[in-house]
């Protein structure tokens, strides 16, 4: 059976780290704060990644590509990952115009890697709502990106 909790998570070092957080009194590491921080970062990450992809597309030549597992999976309606990212970014702008919350959820989940629960906490909606928004946004974006 899988254990309930992580073994690697806190040895004395990390414990001190936590102790340290308290002592320095940046207050308790609040779950909400963490989520909030990610949410703020999501935008930044989106910009960095999309810019990177844009530059990369210009530079990119043929040849050996070393991509991660995840990249293979994300190349959805065909084409190269970098291009998709730029296209996705544009589609997200369009989505934000008709449904800003869904666009934000995609930003937080896809670009910042927030969990459904964290997103729910940031947006003050239930996890169920986030999931439903996510699937609708995903369908909308997929269709948008499949149109060429």
């Amino acid at each position, binding site marked *: 059976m899988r254990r309930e909790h992580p*073994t690697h998570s806190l040895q004395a070092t990390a414990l*001190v780290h936590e102790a340290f957080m308290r002592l320095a009194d940046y207050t308790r*590491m609040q779950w909400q704060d963490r989520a909030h921080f990610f949410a703020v970062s999501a935008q930044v990450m989106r910009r960095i990644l999309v810019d990177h992809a844009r530059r990369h597309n210009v530079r990119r030549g043929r040849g050996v590509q070393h991509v991660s597992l995840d990249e*293979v999976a994300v190349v959805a309606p065909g084409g190269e990952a970098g291009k998709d990212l730029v296209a996705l970014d544009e589609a997200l702008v369009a989505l934000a115009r008709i449904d800003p919350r869904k666009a934000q959820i995609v930003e937080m989940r*896809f670009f910042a890697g927030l969990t459904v629960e964290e997103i729910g906490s940031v947006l003050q909606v239930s996890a169920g709502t986030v999931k439903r928004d996510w699937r609708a946004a995903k369908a909308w974006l997929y269709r948008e990106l499949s149109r060429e």
Partner: protein
Amino acid sequence: MNADRWKHVEPLLQTALDLPPGEREEFLKRRCGGDEQLEHEVRSLVAAHDRAGSFLGNPPIDWAPLPLAGDGSGDQLPASGDSLIGRTLSHYYIVEQLGVGGMGVLYKAKDTRLGRPVALKFVSDELSREPEALDRFAREARIASALNHPNICTLHDIGEHDGRSFIVMEYLEGTTLKDRLAAGPLSLNAALDMGTQVATALDAAHTAGIIHRDIKPENIFVGPRDHVKVLDFGLAKMRTTAKHQADVTTMAGTGQNVVMGTAAYMAPEQARGEVVDHRADIWSVGLVLYEMVKGTRPPQAVRLRVEASPELERIVSKCLESEPELRYQHASEMRADLQRAKRDTDSMATASAAPRPAARTLRRALSLAAAGVALAASGIGGYLYLHRPPKLTDKDTIVLADFANTTGDTVFDDTLRQGLAVQFEQSPFLSAVSDERVRKALQLMGLPATARLTADVAHDICIRTGSTAVVNGSIASLGNQYVLGLRAEHCGTGDLLDLEQLQAARKEDVLKVLSQLATTFRTRVGESLATVQKHSRPLEEGTTSSLDALKAYSAAMTSVIDPKTAIPLLKRALDIDPNFATAHALLGLQYSGLGESRLGEESTSKAYQLRDHATDRERFLIMTIYDRQVTGNLEKEAETLRLWAQTYPRDANAPGLMGGFATAGTGQYDLMIAMGREAMAINPDLLPPYLNVVNGYISLGRPQDAEQAFQQAIGHVSATADVVTLLYQIAFLKGDAAGMEHQAALAKGKPGVEDRILHLQALVLARAGRLGAARQSARHAIDLASAAGRRERAAVAETAVSVWEALYGNAAAATRSAMQVFEVENGRHVTYAAALALALGGERSRSQAITDDLDRRFPEDTSVRFVYVPTLRALSALSANEPSRAIELLRPAATYEFAQPGISFYGAGGGSFGAMYATYLRGEAYLALHKATEATAEFQKILDHPGVVLGDPIGALARLQLARALTMSGDARKAKAAYQDLLALWKDADPDLALPKQAKAELAALR
């Protein structure tokens, strides 16, 4: 589509997606009421949803660094389909083609970086044109990479060449079971042995929620000494609860009616296309087992006979029950039966042989256990004796894997790794990769943060984190005894660094033996004997001798973020072992985190008393916490931290802690930044140093540098608490009102953040003379903090109100507010602030009593000694019209003139007010003595340190007093400028406020 249209479309889309696919069409027809455009719209979205599969499945942040152009050797590769032999793709040199399988071509290659042979599997040309096949391919890769087990083929990497994806796998020597069986059936013994290995692999996969779904002889690989590896988890899919089954199927992109797997070995329910679970694999293994001993698959509908072994016959029959409920429910049960059957076969064989002396049997058993413990590819032993093992240096880091615990006793889970970590942490030489780093690596590997650090996972983490070695521990039972093993391997070269093994006669001795193992290990890998001897307290002396206490402690540490879980666990650990010093210390921290300062101090003091029962590093931590929380003696704390840093130069926590209150509370902001940077250099994943550096720059009044430092923190995205507060302060320093508003808006509705921002806003409003609005904001902050049970934080906000009321001359309001604070018990910092308000409001006797009490109770506390007591006493002297005495009393405060005392930085959330009050009072005293130049210098100091004073209303008052001092000195021009500066600050002040009116009159008198 516009937003209005979308409002019609989305609900229909959602409802349609909730319906089974078969019912959607009818629903759409009915609900769209002939609106063809709408119907089309929704239908295309439903279709997109169904096709989307793993689209957006993985954040791009997880992707490998995007590639540069090829290095030339790989650039002009032949078109796909041509031979790749002799080519180098990425860093894989293709040696030969091994075969063509269902999914594509398989090559043998050499990993030119790590020098090891690997297998590359390409998607076939036809398949690579089908997105679904690519998807399946990627899924295989992902799923296989999540499984790390000696009996499962390891996946190393994935790459892409000319638009074709390939997987990089462990290169295996041997043949598939299919080829092996072509030469005839196996012996009963070999069949039982291999069957056990397959069952073990499946047990691991099933436990991880993964079903193979295509177990067949082709997918079982037999290596040297019949070591079995299960291949191709390509059809596997994550097991989920039945409730989510439908969803997951769609998401995984496996069409609902598509049956996957190889028909001949499929379980009946799988062949029928029903939802299958792990018991389908058990069916398939049954068939494979039969085929192993008989050489052919069983005929249909005939009672199976395995003449060689009735026991195996029973096992096979149980696997092949057509109802999943009647089969083995878990692979582990099957494995146990297979092992039993094997044991019986063995003992029959032994019985027929000549009886052996008992001692020899035991020795054999021991060496078998040793082999099991090492778990490594064979030949290691020989290697160990032939080569001098390489050593580590003090630049290397190591990764600790989870212990392989085959005893079945869960008390060893986590506990032993924890124990080993404590042992290694004593070493100034060894440095284990931080947990943050491990978590990040796991995330990049697509594994949950809670994933078990199996040998293979730990190995990957070692590579990913640029570490040198991975240490695998193991424990196995041997009769009533235990065999503990440690095995360290260079993760880049695969060289064995050390292999240790010791036996514990009883369970009670396991920790002792673990300590011995750790000590030997340290010397073997290159640590000097001197430091090993100096810092090697055995666990039972240093930490705890109780396995159960250590277990509860390990559990507590994993939940350290949540005090509600951690506290009972720590208490449990202390019930078992009341002398467990570090557990006391941790409990103390948890309590103070909850704002239970008194309980916190109690536990911390207890830990301090027991500090001799701790390892050196634990003792440093305990002493630090003790001085920070109990004595408040920052000088002593800094001394401990310096010694800590000296003894353990590779420990980021010493400089990290030094960069916090130890430096802020003594006003050493340059040191604060330097220490933060040092901690960052040692461990880039520790977040607090980043924030401390930001805070250091804020305190130095350098918002641009603070902002830049903040950008760095973002680069190390991780959790953080008061980012918003820091950004608010940066905006304040820049005079950026919009930025402050922005942060306040972000904080809105965020528990634990909003109240702090409201409090800061209240201070800034009060500074601008807008007391009405300030009170409102403060009230809101206090209510929020109280409602959340943050009593001390509410008290801090309340004292801020009382202090500014007093400064603005509303003595009655100040006293009222301060008295409210005294109604409950408070920490020393809040007590001081309330006393300050009383004294400023003229309540001399009461504040004097509190001062004496603080002086008596906290004789060592740095803030009390150098700030609180001098300030309160000087106030008292001033109100008694004794300015010279006040100046004398303020002398000690000059030591840490620019410090942020506890109330400002540390006390219950950091009040962000209360710094430089001693300076202010000294200025007043000089004014009273008509020493205009000296007074001017004091008030100017306050204006020159905006990063220390921040939004504290004292900043406004200092401007008023500066103008008065300048007037007194006869410098009318400068005095005018000072008044104008002040009146600009007070331009929106409440009309009924006395001080602004007074200031205006004083300015008018100058003209």
